[in-house]
């Protein structure tokens, strides 16, 4: 029955979360796709992580000052938050609403911004845009703090339209004009950050949003054909009514969750990869009154998302690579030392979390891979999956034993591929894995001294699979 198809449910858990270990995958498959999806779409119905415990054991993560602590906290949540889609959405919004530590230079404010994405990223899009437009880190990152009634800085006004809501154009048309950018920026004058305490010697203090009416340009503005004395609030209302906004956000969701689209700057001239799916998300956006969860439901229940052709078609982002391998191996599922070092791994793989290269975010797809990052990806994942001491890997070895007392090389390879994914590989990859397995011949367990050798062979095979080109996809 399709609803209980383990490959399909694994696909859902990889995309709508950061994957799972085998136990959870089997439990979710038994529960069925629809029920598993319902839980993912209802984060508040699921338990949260135990923050009290986290902060008691890692006091540095409570109101973190250093950016490294904020990243550490986030990676812990990616691994352990039972509300997996909520955590994935915080990453999604971070890749769209880009702001970075290189400029903000304030670890706590990055933490505050990501926490806002986590809490509100599955709510109402209008509400989310408002929170974004009053987020001190973002206002500073995009220079709205430098935008005044008498001296306009267009940066936030422009990126709000170009990167955060409408996109420059669609269906070969432009979505807005330079005059609209100016009107938008004028409406957001006075949306500022209250003066902060100097950072030394006691460290950074929280920044606060403050609206300064004296610095707000209250004059008449024409924005997207509508004229009035618009403030930022009004602009957000107008933006959210635009079909372009529905299209842009829908397409971003498809790009992130379904299949890699061409780069964003080409979207004006290039139609979406899956136009019907994008359209159904646009409908969900308007019918629900801009509810992001309604869009996600439309996405994950679509036949396009469920089709085999989109499985393993995306190159895993470094965060997905690191967190996915940890979850599969069952490592750092409790609070213990060593996660700080691991939380830097995505950076080594080219994804410096909370510090995207530019406001346009990371280049994804094949651009995650170069000779340096590939070595990091392969070594990280294969070290974990080859470590048969880890509970998740031990569970895989036990499952493998359930296949029978003696495994032929074919059964070993196919069994391992099934257990880590199920991961389909190209014939030539399977042939090489098989050739390797054949050198050791059949492998047995249960007999005298056989278990250690069985475990070693299984671990070695998991390790080899984690090093394949196919494992780079999720």
């Amino acid at each position, binding site marked *: 029955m399709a609803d209980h198809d383990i490959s399909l449910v694994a696909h859902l858990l990889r995309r709508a979360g950061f994957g799972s270990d085998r136990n959870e995958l089997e439990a979710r498959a038994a529960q069925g796709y629809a029920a598993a999806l319902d839980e993912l779409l209802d984060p508040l119905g699921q338990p949260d992580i135990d923050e009290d415990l986290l902060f008691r054991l890692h006091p540095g993560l409570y109101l973190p000052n250093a950016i490294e602590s904020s990243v550490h906290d986030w990676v812990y949540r990616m691994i352990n938050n039972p509300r997996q889609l909520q955590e994935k959405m915080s990453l999604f919004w971070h890749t769209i609403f880009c702001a*970075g*530590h*290189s*400029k903000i*230079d304030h670890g706590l404010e990055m933490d505050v911004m990501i926490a806002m994405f986590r809490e509100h990223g599955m709510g109402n899009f209008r509400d989310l845009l408002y929170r974004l437009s009053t987020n001190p880190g973002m206002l500073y990152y995009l220079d709205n703090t430098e935008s005044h009634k008498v001296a306009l800085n267009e940066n936030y006004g422009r990126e709000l339209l170009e990167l955060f809501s409408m996109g420059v154009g669609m269906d070969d048309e432009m979505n807005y004009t330079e005059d609209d950018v100016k009107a938008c920026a004028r409406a957001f004058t006075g949306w500022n950050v209250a003066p902060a305490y100097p950072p*030394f*010697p006691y460290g950074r203090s929280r920044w606060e949003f403050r609206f300064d009416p004296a610095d707000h340009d209250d004059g008449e503005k024409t924005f997207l054909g509508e004229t009035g004395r618009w403030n930022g609030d009004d602009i957000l209302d107008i933006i959210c009514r635009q079909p372009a906004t529905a299209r842009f956000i829908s397409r971003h969701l498809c790009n992130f969750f379904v299949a890699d689209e061409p780069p964003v700057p080409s979207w004006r001239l290039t139609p979406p990869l899956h136009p019907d799916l994008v359209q159904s998300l646009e409908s969900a956006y308007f019918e629900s009154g801009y509810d992001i969860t309604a869009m996600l439901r439309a996405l994950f229940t679509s036949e396009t998302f469920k089709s085999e052709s989109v499985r393993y078609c995306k*190159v895993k982002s470094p965060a997905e690579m690191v967190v996915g391998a940890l979850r599969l191996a069952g490592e750092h599922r409790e609070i213990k030392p060593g996660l700080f070092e691991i939380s*830097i791994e995505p*950076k*080594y793989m*080219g994804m*410096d979390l909370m*510090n995207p*290269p*530019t*406001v346009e975010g990371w*280049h994804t*797809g*094949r*651009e995650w*891979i*170069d*000779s*340096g*990052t*590939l*070595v*990091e990806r*392969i*070594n990280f994942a*294969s*070290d974990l999956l*080859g470590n048969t001491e880890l509970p998740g890997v031990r569970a895989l070895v036990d499952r493998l034993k359930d296949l029978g007392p003696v495994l032929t090389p074919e059964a070993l390879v196919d069994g391992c591929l099934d257990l880590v994914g199920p991961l389909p590989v*190209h014939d*030539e*990859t399977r042939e*090489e*894995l098989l*050739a*390797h397995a054949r*050198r050791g011949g059949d492998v047995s367990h249960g007999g005298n001294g056989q278990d250690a050798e069985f475990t070693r062979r299984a671990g*070695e095979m998991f*390790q*080899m699979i984690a*090093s*394949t*080109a*196919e494992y*780079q*996809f999720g």
Partner: protein
Amino acid sequence: MVSTKKDPVLAVLSLSGGNDGLNTVIPRTNGLYWDSRPTLAIAEEQALPITDELGFHPEMGPIKKFWDEGKLAIFLGVGYPNASYSHFRSMDIWHTCEPDAQGTEGWLGRAIKDLDPQSENVLTGVNFGRGLPRALAKDGVPVASVGDLETYGLLTKIAGQDQRAQALDVFGRMYSPAIGRGPVIDYIRSTGTDALKGADILSTAPGKYKSSLEYPKSAVGQYMRNIAQTHLAGFGSRVLFTTSPYNSFDTHANEAVNHAGLLRDVSATVDTFMADLREQQQSDNVLLFMFTEFGRRIMDNGSGTDHGAAGIAFALGEGVQGGIYGEYPSLEPAEQEEGGNLKFNLDFRCVYSGILEDWLGLDPEPIVGGNFERVKFL
């Protein structure tokens, strides 16, 4: 005619964290220096004389040797317009040469592309330390990032040499290219093949290396030793980069002790590095460049110094015309950068242009993003 001239090699050491220029090259006779550094001033007679007005920090004896030999260029007042006081942003600016926009491509990534346009050598550029600094990033330019040369490679945690050799053999065949399975997976396979090739070659470097010299045990010492090993192994690497880790030069507190230790380490490392190359007669084609993302505040804060603007850079090598380039920024309050900082007078892109044109033989303009009058120190 066969040229026997060796290709020039650029080694770069990034002193990340913001090295305190005022306590590195000390304006030892300037009263304003004394007034500004009630806690941290270095006594005039302790500073190692460079000129009548300037002196090295007392821990920099080993570097002063190169000054005395005429092999050290000192760049004073280096920076760029509208200083950023954020480590990350300022380092990005030095890496990408883009002070206004956020750039994604590094100057050395572009240089490597020009040195080896077809990426014929996967080791033309090598970084030591994990994660690629943006200086070396450019799409389509393979750069290996080596955490530790002794253990670098793929599938390094497989126990047993035979097992690992077998696994690497399987890996090599799984990634063998020209199968036509789709552009992305084909690309990943060819990248994997490059990575394996690079790792195979690099793994032979420590075995080939013989030296009577001992580097400091610090991270900087070991990274610079790895650079020497890679250079001496003759892989044809042209750009070798490393960073002093942990933003260690960020001396907000207890600077007197910490900064002295950092300079002692760097000086001993540089001295050993040059001696190592000289011992093997392999120093003539190496230029070592050292920089930091910014200098520090003129006034000390009672224990250390906060982020500043203009800083100091060094270039060292047999081909260098030793001397002072740029001017010591004025400490006069009226001539300071806003916030009590040193004003830059030498754009770092002028220094880069000198390195690119006179050392690597490249056209600097497209690499540094403009026409900057190059500093002629080579």
